[in-house]
């Protein structure tokens, strides 16, 4: 059930944007998913198909793009990848003081609609 509530939020965002642009139907929804996110593309698509029945988003295709996780070292300022191994130490200076600068977000980027 993990993805049900986030999919409801995605559908709300899509229907709101579609409504404000007087779309007759939504064809494509482009979504960015950070590498650090545990949300699963297939489950979101499954719930979306179910929840969007009888709305202008019915039949829309969800296209996902995974955004790699990256961090910026607070000590030496260099950027480094965080994905897969969750390597949480700056490879340049060995510090573990860093901030995540990408890969922890979920975003509805844009929609392709029929007017």
């Amino acid at each position, binding site marked *: 059930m993990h993805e049900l*509530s986030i999919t409801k939020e995605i559908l709300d965002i899509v229907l709101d944007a579609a409504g404000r642009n007087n779309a007759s139907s939504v064809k494509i929804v482009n979504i960015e998913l950070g590498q650090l996110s*545990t949300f699963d593309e297939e489950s979101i698509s499954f719930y979306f198909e179910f929840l969007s029945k009888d709305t202008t988003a019915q039949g829309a295709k969800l296209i996902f793009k995974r955004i790699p996780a990256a961090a910026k070292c607070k000590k030496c300022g260099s950027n480094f990848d965080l994905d897969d191994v969750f390597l949480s130490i700056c490879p340049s200076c060995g510090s573990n003081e860093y901030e995540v600068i990408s890969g922890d977000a979920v975003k509805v980027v844009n929609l392709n609609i029929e007017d």
Partner: protein
Amino acid sequence: MSEIKVGMSPLERNRVIADRNRSLLDEKHVLMINIMAAPGAGKTSVIAGVAKYLKPKYRLFVIEADLATSIDADKLNALGIESMQVNTISMCHLEARHIDERLKKVPVDDTDIIFIENVGNLVCPSEYYLGEDIKMVILSAAEGHDKVAKYPNIFFKADAIILNKTDLIKHVDFDEDYLLASISKINPKAAFFRVSCQTGEGLSALAAYIAERLAAKRI
């Protein structure tokens, strides 16, 4: 066909509510701890264990979440620890709106520390910020030493990682060095505590950490 730019996060609504929860508690100088773990790791026992040390000095309140029953809240209330049960029915995690609703019923002006016992799960709760000051993730020796490596997302975000049921280590196949290596790789910044709710090991140190965090918030 035309393209519409959106650029909105489906977690934004949750974040706004969580920030509101946090501002309310910041204003009242209340510390809120989000406790996450797999079912059976000992979340309720750890709360009861640290409460022994904290209760004489601080006013505690516990928001308990499970799919069903009020077993945990009943248990804590019987120990004199004021608790409220939330039943999420089919939901695998708490969201900020659940806490927003409950905070209206918590005597915030007469509370120092709020513990949230999240739904037993090592995946979903990691995605939802509730407005807490501390994310505390518990694993128990009985679950095995590979949990941090296998569920990195939730441990990556933890401010404190608790190894519970240390009394069982000698009875089960548990490689503590493996666990410590996983933590130092995934989240070396997290505070780490070894506790046993059976023997009482480590509970006073964990309570002291919580008290320090509250004191830091009140400076």
